């Protein structure tokens, strides 16, 4: 075989190796970024949960004068807030957060029975602010789930799963799921 042909074949081989190594490095770095995105997305939910938690004492203060018969609901909200602040693990935080959401839903539904409360500017402002935060939390949870799904799919996809296996990325992350209480219809009595 002519020397030229050997050099050409060698060049093709080197190019293939360069492309494969380039792909491997790119995939490796992409996995690092994907994995880092998940705690970041979770942290971004936490920021909003903290903001919501900061608004709760103001809400309780503004409604307790009107809702004397709903003492139990307000107490549940306060307890849930304390539980969220003390929670160390992610499931405990999620559970406390869901309890806060459920208590808030009840307070806002029951508030309909108190025309004076509904007319209060402070309550309207707090309700708007907290509802806004709830919506933002829902969007960020969706974003978190998207990040987790992308990661979970990528570590299973061929040929990227070879890189994932070499990096020891076998564990899938868990998605946020709606709790049984969240899936239930809200009952409002007139």
């Amino acid at each position, binding site marked *: 075989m002519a020397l030229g042909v050997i050099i050409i074949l060698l060049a093709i081989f080197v190019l293939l190796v360069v492309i494969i190594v380039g792909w491997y490095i790119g995939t490796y770095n992409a996995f690092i970024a994907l994995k880092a995105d998940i705690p970041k997305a979770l942290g971004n939910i936490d920021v909003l949960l903290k903001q919501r938690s900061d608004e709760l004492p103001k809400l309780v203060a503004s409604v307790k004068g009107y809702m004397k018969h709903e003492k139990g609901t307000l107490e549940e909200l306060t307890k849930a807030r304390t539980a969220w602040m003390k929670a160390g693990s992610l499931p405990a935080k999620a559970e406390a957060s869901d309890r806060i959401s459920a208590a808030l839903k009840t307070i806002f539904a029951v508030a309909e029975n108190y025309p004076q409360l509904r007319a209060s500017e402070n309550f309207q402002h707090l309700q708007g602010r907290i509802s806004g935060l709830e919506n933002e939390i829902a969007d*960020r949870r969706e974003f978190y789930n998207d990040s987790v799904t992308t990661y979970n799919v990528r570590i299973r996809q061929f040929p990227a799963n070879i890189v994932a296996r070499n990096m020891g990325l076998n564990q899938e992350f868990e998605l946020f799921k709606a709790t049984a209480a969240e899936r239930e219809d809200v009952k409002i009595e007139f």
Partner: protein
Amino acid sequence: MIDTWVVYNHYEQRVRGGKNILNNYPFLFIMAKDPLPYAFFGLVGGAVLIMIGFKQWRIKRLVENTPTSKVRGIAMGFVEVCGTVSKPFKQYLVGPFTGKECVYYSYKIEEERQGSKGRRYWATIRSDVQSIPFFAKDNTGAVLVDPKGAIKLFSEKNNLRLSGLFGSRPLRFTETHLAPNDIIYILGTAGDNPYVKEGRAVNGVEDVMIQKGKHSPYYISDKGEKDVLKRFAWQVYGFLFSGCALLIACLAYILYRFGLF
């Protein structure tokens, strides 16, 4: 092989009184009759194309792996947003040829000219790009976007192209714009909105502006995410394939010239 090179330095000789320009600009006025030097340039060109292919591959991965944020839930940092163009932050721009209200336009005026070998080509005689901060919206809200510094990937659909004889000169006018309700895809960095004072925002997204990050890419397109991905995929395949092909072809020619075939 230096005897096959011709140095065109007549201009330089006339202006500088015969000084050899090779000392200052060795590559500017050098042309080769022999294609061999071009083959060496081709090798470098092929390697550059492969590097561009890898760069585009990295961006394609970034588009694939970045989940789309809802406008209402945008967090500070690198974000991807899909939606439509809403209103501008202040006043609309007006497209120079279409007269359409828009938030971004670019235009160029080209003149048809004849080259030295009789080949006709379009030469740009005037061009400009203007953009202003605008709001992008989806079904959850609107966020301010500063398009300064973004790489704009615009399709032909937002182009206006007129050509014909204007006076005695064959001219061509092209305008590309981004108007309200156009689809928009943004891959950029959500940072502080400099137009809103800290703590004055009524809802979370008001104090956020999507802009160019310090070390992250910034892309704006008038296509959806799938089309943007398709475009990057074609670029990756195109650059990598053409780079490899050019490199191999040039190498084969060099080897042939050195009698190794």
